[in-house]
């Protein structure tokens, strides 16, 4: 996940990726309504075997990658997770596990740490069991609180990740209380970004402007209170921003994502862009793909940009914003991200926001009819 922190990251050699996101599987016990997996999920039979992942981790390290994020779906469902952590660590990578905590046991956690795990990012769907169930259609909240107790026994990095939206934003104070009680190194309050499953649930999930303002204010005071204990990061919903986010730190600039079946993508959502061909680690090396794959070259640098991006003074800061959002909202992946207030297509974002903000919630809303993420066998 890209947050404000990425500006602090080093680029030892700006032509090399810094992070590899390994989507080990799309299987997951949770069915979150904003899942970042594609709507067409990879099946278990097509998942890369351990030996291929091991080779990919070595190739990544040789390419200059520092961080390996093991994610999914739920990476814990992979029976070879301990072996994969060991393989990543032997390759010289810093290993993070991005997890819901389901299905984790105390002894499994100890084995993962023993294998070389550096950092766990534990996701929360809310501050209460009821809200978490509404979002993920799975009973998981109580188990996550157990996982927190087990994590206390190990000297590894811990990030608590709260995905924020209209249906849980009222629990923000309780989420912060959980952070204050546990005091992880980092707490991320990441607003839902609207692609794939989240895009299908946009009407239900987009918060109102008043909610976002309250959230910013509350988190700013938490940041001050927790200084020196927990780094508090807030990612605003970009629909409410004036300029686009520098999506994935710029296309093909900092990270690579490998899907469960071996396709290499510049970002989580890149598959939604039509006509973009992706290479597979089963056929090519990561270095080859990074340097010459059509998918990585298409929007790398500035040559692809149209006006107003092409001559904009912000083009080195936000790289024209998100290509996937540009496609989703305008039908043209080469256009400026319509979150940008400098383009006429911004009107479309404003229409969506006006509709959300016109609905003044008086008392608790009824749970919406969500499109839940599909289960994946």
């Amino acid at each position: 996940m890209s947050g404000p922190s990425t500006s602090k990251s080093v680029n030892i050699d700006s032509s090399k990726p810094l992070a590899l996101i390994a989507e080990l599987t799309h299987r997951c016990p949770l069915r979150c309504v904003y899942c970042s997996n594609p709507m067409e999920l990879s099946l278990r039979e097509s998942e890369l075997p351990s030996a291929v992942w091991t080779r990919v981790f070595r190739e990544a390290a040789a390419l200059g990658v520092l961080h390996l994020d093991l994610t999914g779906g739920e990476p814990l469902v992979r029976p070879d997770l301990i072996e994969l952590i060991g393989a990543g660590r032997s390759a010289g990578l810093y290993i993070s596990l991005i997890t819901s905590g389901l299905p984790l046991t105390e002894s499994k956690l100890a084995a993962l740490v023993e294998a070389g795990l550096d950092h766990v990012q534990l996701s929360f769907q809310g501050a209460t069991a009821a809200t978490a169930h509404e979002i993920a259609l799975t009973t998981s909240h109580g188990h996550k609180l157990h996982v927190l107790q087990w994590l206390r026994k190990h000297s590894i990095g811990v990030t608590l990740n709260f995905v924020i939206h209209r249906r849980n934003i009222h629990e923000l104070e309780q989420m912060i209380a959980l952070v204050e009680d546990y005091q992880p190194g980092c707490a991320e309050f990441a607003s839902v970004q609207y692609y794939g499953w989240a895009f299908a649930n946009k009407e239900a999930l987009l918060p109102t402007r008043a909610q976002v303002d309250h959230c910013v204010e509350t988190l700013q005071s938490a940041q001050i209170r927790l200084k020196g204990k927990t780094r508090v990061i807030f990612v605003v919903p970009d629909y409410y921003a004036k300029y686009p986010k520098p999506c994935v730190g710029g296309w093909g600039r900092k990270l690579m994502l490998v899907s469960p079946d071996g396709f290499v993508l510049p970002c989580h959502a890149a598959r939604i862009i039509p006509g973009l061909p992706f290479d597979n680690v089963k056929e090519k090396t990561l270095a080859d793909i990074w340097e010459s794959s059509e998918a990585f070259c298409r929007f790398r640098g500035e040559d692809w940009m149209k006006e107003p991006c092409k001559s904009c003074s912000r083009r080195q800061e936000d790289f024209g914003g998100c290509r996937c959002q540009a496609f989703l909202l305008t039908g043209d992946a080469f256009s400026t991200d319509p979150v940008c207030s400098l383009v006429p297509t911004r009107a479309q974002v404003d229409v969506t926001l006006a509709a959300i903000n016109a609905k003044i919630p008086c008392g608790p809303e009824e749970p919406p009819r969500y499109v839940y993420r599909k289960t994946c066998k």
Partner: protein
Amino acid sequence: MKPNHNAIPRLAPGVRLGDNDRQPKILLMPERALRLNGPSFEILRLCDGQNSVLGIAEKLQAAYPAADPQQILNDTIDYLAALRDERAIDF
């Protein structure tokens, strides 16, 4: 919060120095990495749970004999405070 002279800084959980020649003078942290220039690398290498703040400043003095001792101590304290706010170290 600034550390006192006897505090013993150590790397925070999940933080370690790059341990191979592809990661020279890099501090690896959850979701980010810091490039360490000049004395910052020396300071972090000494944040091993053995050295006090005064001890770190003394060792830096040995490496930079021409520098003013009070300046070295003050700069070390400020840098350690900043590293703690970044959650890179505890003391």
